[in-house]
């Protein structure tokens, strides 16, 4: 009965309902602005959540139907039609959108101070809700777009809404710079995409995504442009510079959406165009592999030495996006070599990791925002001991970290295992030597990156949540009960555990998307034969037995005492390990990459044994930002200053320009 309700025509109805709810919400915020009142939180959140739920139901109905549903809204829309299609590839991404949107809605009231913010400016809640609704609307329609023009329109809606959201909470210089960086990156991506789309239109004569194929040599420029645009939007090295700025400045729930879902639309585009279009250009594949690998290492190294919790998460996104790009390029490589099973494993890994990363990154973002909200700081050097003050947040952050470090039995393990397995099988197959060499070397590199992310997240938990508070700010009153944001966190972490322990079931659900992307009839569940469920059950039972038999009975006789301090009496929290000192050994090994400099200045008469003052200063000048970006920005500034001379403001000169353009166009028209 319920399934009938969600059958194909109705799933369009549900998608429509979602769009309707969000559009009505946007209209309400505009009306409220006109009436100079505030839209009630409850109404705005109900519309957001209702829309998200409708989109999710639509996606499930779409999944049940198993066939793509097409819907043309307008016959004439620019050069083509305004048409949408919901196919198996879009479904996982729509479900991710629903999930993260619901979680961020649930936590909005706790994380957004709707009266005043830190600087004392009145928080414009109408503005905020309008942008969130536009962001959701844009993202859903990006995922459903059937042709290039429709895609670009909603891609722009999404990007502009995201950029404005970054500045919505704080009116300060840093947020404005972050928004500027974000909008620059989006514009660059859009420009590259437009170029690629026009090229493909020229090649194929249509704007429909479904009829674009990337096999022939003439499509190479378009494929390369798409890859570069995706890399910029996803924050792949060297275009990662805007991620840490923008994720750190966006208000909590928006940051969860931007980091969890918006970056994934870039991955979705790559899958939709290059993987579905069967791209076989080796250059595109190897460039993607190289950029992905560099971002993996680069992102996690910078995450490790980062002090700001949200910036740390953003750099770790760079790493995970790199991993996904690597997996996609491997699947294209395997397809090119005629190895459908490996291509299927890599694509399953890609889809699952994209979904998983969306879940645990938004979880970690929301947790970091909760800390920011409570302690009014995200600086790890000021935090500490939050396990006692935010127990639920701690639990969720812990599970999220286990998942992002890809440790079993979490969902991250399942998806990373698939990527490892794809490289491993590639190294076994009789493919050209360089492909085997790359695949085997990638196993080493990925394990290195895995160990780095373990270091990074043990630091994040250990410094922020464990030990003692390092400042007054971290000594706020403990949370009582399960607030909305804590509930969102707990639900997301439960999903992480569920996706990991029952990976088989979840992968089976991905099978239609896999079949669509690779054309193989493989069941995705069979690609992941590790018995995680059995092992984790066994582990859980064993650990409980050990606890109950050995530690449990001794709990009553347990003594609580101060931490060991060599007999000097309780030491202050300043004696604790800090985030910087935790990552310092690694920072020193990679000081060439990180440009990390530590200066220690000890003053006093007998400096070594009786210092009077010790000053330690660490400095890090990110290489890319200071040299590459700076040059680029200088170049842009210089050329725009030069170009302004063209625009004198005189009407005569502008008429001359018009006239000259006309002549050129007429000439071109006669010649071509």
């Amino acid at each position, binding site marked *: 009965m319920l399934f009938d309700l969600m059958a194909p025509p109705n799933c369009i109805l549900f998608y429509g309902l979602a769009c309707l709810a969000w559009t009505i919400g946007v209209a309400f915020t505009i009306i409220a602005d006109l009436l100079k009142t505030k839209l009630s939180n409850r109404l705005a959140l109900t519309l957001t959540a209702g829309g998200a739920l409708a989109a999710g139901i639509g996606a499930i109905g779409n999944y049940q139907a198993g066939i793509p549903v097409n819907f043309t809204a307008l016959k004439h829309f620019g050069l083509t039609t305004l048409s949408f299609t919901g196919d198996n590839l879009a479904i996982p991404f729509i479900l991710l959108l629903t999930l993260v949107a619901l979680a961020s809605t649930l936590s909005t009231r706790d994380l957004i101070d709707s009266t005043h913010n830190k600087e004392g400016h009145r928080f414009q809640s109408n503005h905020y809700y309008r942008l969130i609704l536009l962001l959701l609307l844009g993202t859903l329609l990006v995922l459903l777009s059937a042709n290039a023009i429709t895609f670009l329109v909603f891609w722009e809606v999404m990007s502009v809404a995201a950029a404005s959201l970054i500045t919505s909470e704080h009116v300060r210089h840093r947020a404005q710079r972050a928004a500027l960086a974000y909008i620059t990156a989006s514009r660059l991506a859009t420009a590259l995409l437009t170029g690629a789309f026009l090229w493909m239109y020229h090649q194929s004569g249509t704007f429909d995504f479904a009829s674009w194929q990337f096999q022939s040599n003439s499509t190479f420029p378009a494929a390369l442009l798409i890859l570069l645009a995706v890399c910029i939007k996803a924050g792949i090295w060297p275009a990662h510079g805007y991620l840490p700025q923008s994720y750190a400045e966006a208000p909590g729930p928006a940051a969860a959406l931007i980091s969890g879902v918006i970056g994934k639309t870039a991955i979705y585009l790559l899958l939709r165009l290059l993987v579905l279009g069967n791209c076989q250009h080796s250059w595109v594949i190897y460039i993607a592999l190289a950029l992905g690998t560099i971002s993996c290492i680069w992102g996690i190294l910078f995450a490790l030495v980062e002090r700001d919790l949200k910036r740390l998460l953003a750099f770790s996104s760079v790493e995970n996006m790199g991993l996904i790009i690597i997996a996609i390029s491997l699947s294209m490589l395997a397809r090119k070599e005629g190895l459908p099973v490996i291509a299927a494993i890599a694509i399953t890994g890609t889809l699952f990791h994209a979904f998983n990363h969306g879940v645990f990154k938004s979880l970690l973002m929301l947790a970091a925002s909760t800390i920011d909200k409570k302690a009014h700081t995200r600086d790890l050097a000021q935090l*500490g001991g939050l396990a006692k003050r935010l127990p639920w947040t701690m639990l969720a952050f812990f599970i999220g970290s286990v998942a992002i470090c890809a440790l079993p039995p979490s969902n991250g393990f399942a998806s990373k295992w698939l990527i490892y*397995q794809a490289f491993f099988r590639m190294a076994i197959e009789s493919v050209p030597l360089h492909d085997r060499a790359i695949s085997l070397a990638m196993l080493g590199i990925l*394990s290195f990156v895995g*160990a780095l992310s373990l270091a990074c997240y043990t630091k994040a938990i250990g410094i922020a949540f*464990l030990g003692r508070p390092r400042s007054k700010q971290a000594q706020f009153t403990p949370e009582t009960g399960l607030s909305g944001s804590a509930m969102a966190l707990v639900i997301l972490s439960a999903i992480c555990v569920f996706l990991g322990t029952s990976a088989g079931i979840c992968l089976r659900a991905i099978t239609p998307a896999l079949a669509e992307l690779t054309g193989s009839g493989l069941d995705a569940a069979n690609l992941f034969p590790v018995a995680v469920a059995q092992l984790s059950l066994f582990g859980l039972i064993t*650990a409980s037995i050990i606890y109950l038999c050995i530690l449990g009975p001794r709990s009553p006789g347990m003594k609580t005492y101060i*931490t060991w301090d060599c007999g000097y009496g309780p030491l202050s929290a300043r004696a604790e390990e800090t985030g910087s000192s935790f990552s310092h*050994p690694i920072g020193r090994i990679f000081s060439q990459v990180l440009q990390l400099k530590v200066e220690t200045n000890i003053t006093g008469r007998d400096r070594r044994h009786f210092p009077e003052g010790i000053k330690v200063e660490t400095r890090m000048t990110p290489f890319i930002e200071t040299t590459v970006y700076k040059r680029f920005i200088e170049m842009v500034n210089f050329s725009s200053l030069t170009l302004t001379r063209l625009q004198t403001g005189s009407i005569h000169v502008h008429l001359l320009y018009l006239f000259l353009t006309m002549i050129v166009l007429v000439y071109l028209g006669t010649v071509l």
Partner: protein
Amino acid sequence: MSIETNTGEILKNSGTFLASLIILPPLTIGILRKTKARFQNRIGAPLLQPFFDLAKLLQKNETVSEHASWLFRIAPCINLTVMLLLSLLIPWTSLTAIPHGIISADLFLIIYLLGLARFFTVLAALDTGSAFGGFGASREVTLALLVEPAVMLCLACLGVRAGTSDLSQVFSYEATRLTGQYGLWFLAGCGLFLSSLVELSRMPADDPTTHLELTMVHEAMILENSAANLALAEIGHYIKVALLLGLSWQCFMHCLPSHLLSDWTARAIASTGGIISLALFIALIESLAVKLRWTKLPEFIAYAVAMAIFSYLIALSV
């Protein structure tokens, strides 16, 4: 792989496995300590001292730091559980605890389970807010990230040559594509052994018997653990010693002429003897060599990585 149907065979296998899992890890440590003591002209504690220590610790009352959270007492339980799981998965002796085909001893699963144990150990060390624990934790993750690629590459190279990522098949004594690849086995064994020295916090990387907390890695991390909590952490560590030494010894054992190891008993004796002889070798190193300075350690680990890269080159040249 045919599933063994002979119940007697399974019983013999599992029984011996269980006995070696219970006896071998503490005994290895006992032998190691005794040998070091003899080198230093001391009589040394009895061989079974680790058992006595554990028994003593289990009876004592526990003291926990006032700053510790729930993680502190959960971590050793998880740690020991992971080690027990790994003892079933890693082919560290010639015995197979569970018949082939029931659970695959997947290479990536094993490496990430080791990671899970490390995750909990490191967090438990940071949990009390002790400066020593923090130092130890920071060093542990640093060493782990340098060693991890070497371990992964050594095992992956063997796996690639054998054509499977299931280590129980890679290390099986039936004829595989790896039979006769003495060079690869030897290099992988050396790489794993050097990595294990670092992973197990043994001498060139860490001095387990030093009196100075500031220089320690593993001991600094469990400085706050006491009584049963410490006992659990120690048992976990003992098992890890046996597992990793056993794994590298299995690589060396595949270098031996196969007719020497044709029957079950010979293999079982060689596996056990191998772990003990590696422990003796470590005792020899620890008596003759000094602990390296912290800043020199990456150079030592480079040897392990070099072994891994040589096996990588061999594995590629089919």
